[in-house]
Each structure stands twice: as C-alpha cells, then as structure tokens.
C-alpha cells in the first residue's frame, strides 16, 4: 500500500470514459508486466475539469499532468517517468496551476475560446510577488536570451514570430527593434508606452496590474537586442494601481538583480524607471510621448526622423506598447514558430480586446488573430442583451470605425479591419444595437478626439472641431445637405494632412458611419428624425400602453406637457414637449417610447 507513484486517470464524463478505461487497463497491464505494481498504483477519478486536454493523467508526487494520452503513450510514460523519473515533456501540461475544475459552464466557454498569451498570468498570479511570476517561468526568457542568443538572433526571432505592434498601428515589432539596433549610438533607450487612452480600452492596465514583470522582462530583452541600458515606462497617473504595482515589481526585480548591473552574470546592464503621464490621449503617439518624457509639452514631432534614429533626448529609442511587450517572453519560451502558428499568416499571435457596449460579457478577452467578429461577440461575449438586434461593432476606438452585420464573419486581423474602414487600434470593441444612433456614436468619438487633440497642427485642431460643430448641428436637426458633403471633404483632408496618427485617423468614426449608415445621417438631415430615438431634439416622446398611471412623468415634466389621470394612461402633448427626456428617466416601467414617429410633413422635404 505504500506505492511510490500514484497514477491518477481522469474518468470524467467529458473524457471518453472508454478511452480512460483503456488507458488504465494498459497501465495496469504494463506495470504488472514490468513488475512495478509495488512501485506504482493507478486510480481512476471523477472529472478533473481538464476536459480540453482529455484524456488526462496526473502523476503524484510532483503533480505532473500528462494530456492527450493514447494507449500507445502509456509505455513511454512507464519507461521514462516511472522507471527513470524523467518527465515526458511531449505530453506535459506545463502550467503549474491550470484552470482545472471550473464548474461554471458559461465561464468555461468564456475562457475556453480565448487563448491567453499576453494575459497568461493575469488573474492567475499575485502581481505583488515576483516569485509567483518566476514560478511560471518568469525571467527565463531573459535568462535564455542572455545566455544563448546574440542581439541579432533575438531580433531574428522577433521578426520570425511575426509579432506586430499592439498599440494600434500594427508595425512589425522585430523590424522596429532592428531599426533601433542599427542606429549607432552609445546611449539608447527602450520605452514602454503605457499611456492607454482609448475610451473603453483597459487591456494595458490589466497587464500592468496583473502581470507587471512580463513587461519588465520584455523590456530588458529589447534593451539587450537594441543595445540599450535604460528603459522608461510611460504610464498615466490615472492608473494608480498599475503605478504602484510597477514600482513594487521594479523594486523586487532589482532586489533579485534581474534588473540593474550584470543581470544573471551576463555583464548586461539594464534598468527601468517610471515616468508618469498626465493622461493626454495624444501622448500615446510615440513622438509626443517622448516629448512628454523630456519635459516638453506632449505634442507630436515630425517623422522622419523616427525615434529609432532620433528619439528620447535625441538618442535612438524603441517604443512598444504594453501588450506588445507582454507577448515577448512567451515568444522566447515557446519559440517564434510556435507563436507564428497562432493567429493568421499576416497577423500572428493573439489580441486582447476590451468588450463593451451592448454585450453580455463586458470585459477583457484575448483571442487568436483570425477569430471572427461573430465568435468574439456572440460566443465569447455572450451576444446582445435584452434580445435587441445587433447593429454595428466599433473597433479601434476614436481612430477606428464601425463594422456592420454584413462583415461579422470577417476574421479579425490588422489588415482585414483596415480593409473594412476600421482598425485594430489598441483593442476597444464596442458593440452597438438598434438603440444606438450612429450619428451620435460618431459624434461621441469625435468629441473625444476634439478634446484630446494637442492643438499643434491645423487640420486636427481646427478641422475636427468643425466636423464636430456640424455633427452637433445634425443631431439638433439643423443639418443641411451641404453638411454631409463638407463632413466628407473635411474628413478626407484631415486624414491626408494631419501631422500624427491621432489626426490622421480622427475622421474615421465619422467617415465609416457615413459610409455604412448614410441613411441615418440622411434621416437626421432631411427628415429631421433620429431613427434610433437617441437625438433628443429629433425624437418624439410618446407614452405606451405599459403606462401604469403613476403620474411620475407628469410631475417631472418641466413644461407640463404630460396629462393623464391617476392610474390611467398618460399622454404627451408634442406641441409642448421640449424633448428633455426627464419623463423617460422618471418612468418606473419604461413606458416612455423614444421611437421616432415619422411625421408626414417631414417625409417629403
């Protein structure tokens, strides 16, 4: 009864019970044959929850998990593991704490369709404790790079991996490193762009808060590759938790000499400091970010010269975003080819998205490139709540555009999204349903850009403001036919002649909605109607049969436009109504309808 080794075989429902039985039988047969029955014992258990990996075998002690076991594999495991104590890597589940028995079906689906590379440690390890990161092979990529690779090999690996910048533009990371490496200078810098600013996007924050060391490790690798010894993380001060955890992480890494002088005895020095940004969106643009670190006003500079040639304080500088860096250690641990095989041919790896808007599972997801928008929204996101109809999905934040139902089966990658008039951006994915007014959506994003424009160049500073003026007018029912034309011409001009990416992409939300939802614009302009019932001035407020006659609406109406007796259906006098929406807020049973009622006199304008 004191066997040295216990072989636990999962016999759960999800695993083919027969397969598990066959494997157990084979183990028993061979152990008998080898005379090892005193050494090892097999046990069949209930479901371990590792159904993705079935059939699964766990070896104790050591808690070594083998997965995808076949009957043929049993002989190898006995030979290697039981006889020689060597782990059979081929079948091993490498993670020390996998998400085993998740008892919740919808969560399982939520996680199962994801592939967590950048977020591999988020929600799994204690970010305040470097040893938990190390337990998950943290800093081993750096160790490997320092011991086994020269800078050129590092860059080659990066290039081969096909990793592209996750901050928005999608520029190949390996190429970027190569440019910086080729610039000759004694002093170079690595900057981590953690100035995440898209409305609704928070993937970088999640990485910094949940797994700060992966960024530190990647920056050190990058420093080694390009010949830099100093890194800066430019993080917005509005992320106090991230800032605190980064500070702790940097301190712990220094204590273990994983940052600082002579890292792991390699004679390579690298250190990292934090720089706090005041949260200007434009500082996410790399030249503006550099200006900000230098203490200047955060305004973009001309490119060329690119930062790889003349960056921070005039020195060659490589700037990558947080999510990009978070992928780097994995590339070196699992190999460029492994990484290249995830995702699509031109966009390898995964992408983290912040799901928001009219969707069940608001939150953060990481999916392989090539996953379709439909899968992301319906399978992982859980679809649209309240049985509403899908209208559009907005990606790329204020730089992106809206994608319609027609294109939902498009596999997500950098190029496909651009083709659809949107872009990857930093990873916001906002779902809109029939209750969203697309003019209003465009206005929302443009309003953001107008607020966040640095004010340096004319097209962005003045042009976006003029576009917003026009959208405001359209939403108020004062739009003219000419306005739509001016919007298009201005938009195109701003794209062409703005100085930085912020300006060049600022018109996208307007241009893409104009393209896909022109009829909504036209309804606003010609019919003076907001089809979604969002733009208050263009919406007719009515009370539906659901009214319980509580009189709240009448009491809250500032102009006395609502009449009705207690416990009877109320009515709104459209001649008095000022479209303020106070009744809608007050109604306890959602009986105020904002559906546009097409008026005869408006339909023939």
């Amino acid at each position, binding site marked *: 009864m004191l066997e040295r080794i216990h072989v636990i075989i999962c016999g759960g429902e999800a695993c083919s019970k027969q397969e598990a039985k066959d494997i157990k039988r084979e183990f028993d047969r061979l152990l008998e044959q080898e005379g090892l029955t005193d050494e090892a014992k097999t046990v069949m258990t209930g479901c371990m929850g590792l159904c993705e990996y079935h059939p699964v075998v766990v070896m104790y002690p050591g808690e070594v998990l083998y997965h995808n076991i076949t009957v043929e594999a049993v002989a190898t495991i006995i030979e290697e593991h039981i006889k020689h104590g060597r782990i059979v890597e081929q079948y091993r589940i490498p993670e020390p704490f996998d998400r085993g028995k998740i*008892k*919740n079906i919808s969560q399982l689906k939520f996680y199962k369709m994801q592939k967590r590379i950048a977020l591999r440690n988020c929600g799994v390890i204690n*970010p305040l404790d470097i040893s938990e990161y190390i337990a998950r092979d943290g800093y081993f990529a750096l160790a490997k790079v320092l011991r086994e690779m020269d800078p050129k090999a590092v860059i080659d690996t990066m290039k081969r991996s096909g990793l592209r910048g996750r901050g928005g533009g999608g520029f190949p990371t390996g190429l970027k490193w190569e440019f910086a490496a080729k610039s000759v200078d004694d002093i170079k810098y690595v900057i981590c762009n953690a100035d995440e600013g898209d409305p609704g996007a928070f993937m970088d924050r999640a990485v910094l808060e949940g797994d700060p060391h992966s960024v530190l490790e990647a920056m050190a690798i990058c420093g080694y590759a390009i010949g830099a010894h100093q890194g800066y993380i430019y993080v917005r001060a509005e992320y106090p938790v991230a800032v605190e955890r980064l500070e702790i992480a940097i301190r712990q890494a220094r204590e*273990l000499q994983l940052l600082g002088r002579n890292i792991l*005895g390699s004679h390579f020095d690298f250190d990292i400091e934090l720089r706090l940004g005041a949260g200007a969106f434009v500082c996410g643009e790399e030249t503006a970010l550099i200006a900000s670190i230098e203490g200047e006003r955060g305004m973009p500079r001309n490119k060329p010269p690119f930062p790889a040639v003349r960056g921070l304080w005039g020195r060659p500088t490589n700037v990558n975003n947080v999510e990009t860096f978070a992928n780097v250690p994995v590339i070196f641990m699992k190999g460029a080819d492994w990484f290249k095989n995830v995702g699509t041919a031109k966009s390898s790896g995964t992408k983290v998205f912040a799901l928001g808007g009219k969707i*069940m599972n608001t939150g953060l997801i990481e999916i392989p490139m090539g996953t379709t928008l439909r899968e992301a929204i319906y399978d992982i996101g859980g679809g649209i709540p309240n049985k509403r109809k899908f209208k559009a999905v907005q990606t790329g934040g204020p730089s992106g555009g809206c994608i319609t139902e027609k294109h939902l089966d498009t596999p997500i990658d950098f190029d496909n999204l651009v083709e659809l008039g949107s872009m990857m951006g930093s990873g916001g994915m906002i779902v809109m349903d029939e209750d969203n007014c697309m003019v209003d959506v465009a206005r929302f994003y443009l309003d953001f850009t107008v607020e966040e424009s640095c004010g340096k160049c004319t097209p962005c500073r003045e042009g976006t403001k003029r576009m917003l003026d026009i959208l405001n007018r359209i939403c108020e029912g004062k739009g003219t036919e000419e306005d739509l034309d001016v919007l298009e011409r201005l938009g195109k001009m701003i794209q062409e002649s703005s100085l930085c990416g912020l300006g060049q992409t600022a018109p996208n939300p307007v241009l893409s909605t104009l393209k896909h939802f022109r009829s909504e614009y036209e309804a606003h302009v010609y019919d003076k109607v907001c089809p979604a019932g969002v733009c208050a001035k263009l919406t007719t407020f009515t009370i539906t049969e659901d009214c319980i006659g509580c009189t709240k609406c009448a009491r809250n109406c500032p102009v006395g436009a609502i009449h009705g007796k207690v416990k009877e259906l109320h009515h709104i006098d459209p001649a008095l109504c000022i479209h303020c929406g106070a009744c809608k807020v007050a109604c306890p049973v959602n009986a105020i309808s904002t559906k546009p009622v097409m008026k005869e006199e408006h339909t023939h304008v």
Partner: protein
Amino acid sequence: MKSIEELIKLRDSARKNINMRLNPGSIRIQIGMGTCGIAAGAKHVYQKFQEEIREHNLKNIILTPVGCMGECAFEPLVEILESNGNHTIYCQVSERVVEDIVEEHIIGGTPIEKFFLSAIKR
C-alpha cells in the same frame, strides 16, 4: 542572483509554495484586484476574507490578490483553488457572500452554486 541556476532554484521552490496539489488540504483564494475589481469593491472583499480567516483560525490558506480576470462585468470575482484540483469562480461577491463562502465552501467543503456566474447571469 548571479546565475540562471539560482533562478531555477528560486523557481522550483516558488512552485512548491504555490502548487496546490503539493500541499494537500491547502486552499488558495484569489481575488481579482485590477482597477476594475477594486472599483467593484474587491478591496473590501479581500479584507473580509482576512477577517474571516482570522476569526475561524483557518490554516493552510493562501489569500492573494491577482490582476484582472476578464469578466469585469461580474466583479468582484473570487477564485478558489483547492488541492484536489477543484477551481471555483464566484461572481459579484459581497462581504456578506464572503462569510457564506468561508463557512460553506472553505470550511464545509460545498461550493455555493447560486454565486456562480451562470446563476448571476440568470
């Protein structure tokens, strides 16, 4: 640390400490404490767990903050990892719910299904 060998040593000892199945009977409680979780009240949940563990004089429990777990709409999220391999995620956990989890699940050994995501969503 001066060499990779030391790093390996550190990794292996760290793994021993946090690997549930090597510590029979131990339970690891992970609280999603990204900004999203903290905003939803995860700090209070964390403190409540601390109090409960003290009050019940529980041993062999690792209580740890972790980063964002993704399902931000249903935070605070608490994940319980047990040495028998069971993983449970509780959603929208309040301080009141913490008491139940400690008493019924951690001490009693019975997960409380009504606080699972599927229950919450319904």
